[in-house]
């Protein structure tokens, strides 16, 4: 598993979405949603 360093600023939420599962959350104006491809089992 490879991850970039945490983004600067306040962390509002930090969650791992398991393989095959859904996720949802409200994102407030000005906040940033970061999606990280942790393992990239892709060709």
């Amino acid at each position, binding site marked *: 598993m490879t991850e970039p360093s945490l983004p600067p600023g306040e962390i509002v939420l930090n969650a791992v979405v398991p393989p095959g599962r859904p996720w949802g959350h409200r*994102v407030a104006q000005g*906040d940033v949603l970061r999606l990280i491809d942790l393992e990239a089992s892709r060709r």
Partner: protein
Amino acid sequence: MEDPTDRYCATNTIKVQGKLFVGKGTVLYSDLGKALFTVVEDTCGRHDTIYGCCSEPNNFLRYGIRGTHSCFGNFVEALAQFGLDRSYIVSNVNFFMSVPVAIDGAVVNIYGHSAAGNYVDLRAERDVLAVLSNCPQMHNPCNAYNLTPIRAIIWRPSRSGKP
């Protein structure tokens, strides 16, 4: 979330930027032309806008298999947490997936093309309800037949900082 009926619109997004792929600088627009998210960082390079999500019906049409777990089902589950039903599902962005279109219109190489650790930063331009499905597809090579986790972080930039 001002109005849940004003949802992400792939065609507005594609037409405004004149490009099929999402990447750094792309603005994701709604049906009513409101900016939802701006891609402020992207280490992957391109993300699909046209191929939509897998579903139980289209898995049957394509592979003849009934009862499959799908992104459509995941979206139904995610939206239900917010009191919304399947009518709120739209043609989505497939992050970390590339679907090139050949000159004859054929879609080719429907594979993920990301590397471990790649990330995309989406700045909310208004209050947005974001739902995603970490794709459960196991009947085509979009996931290389190997499902993996993703991380979702919501962060708040300092007032003086970027992005």
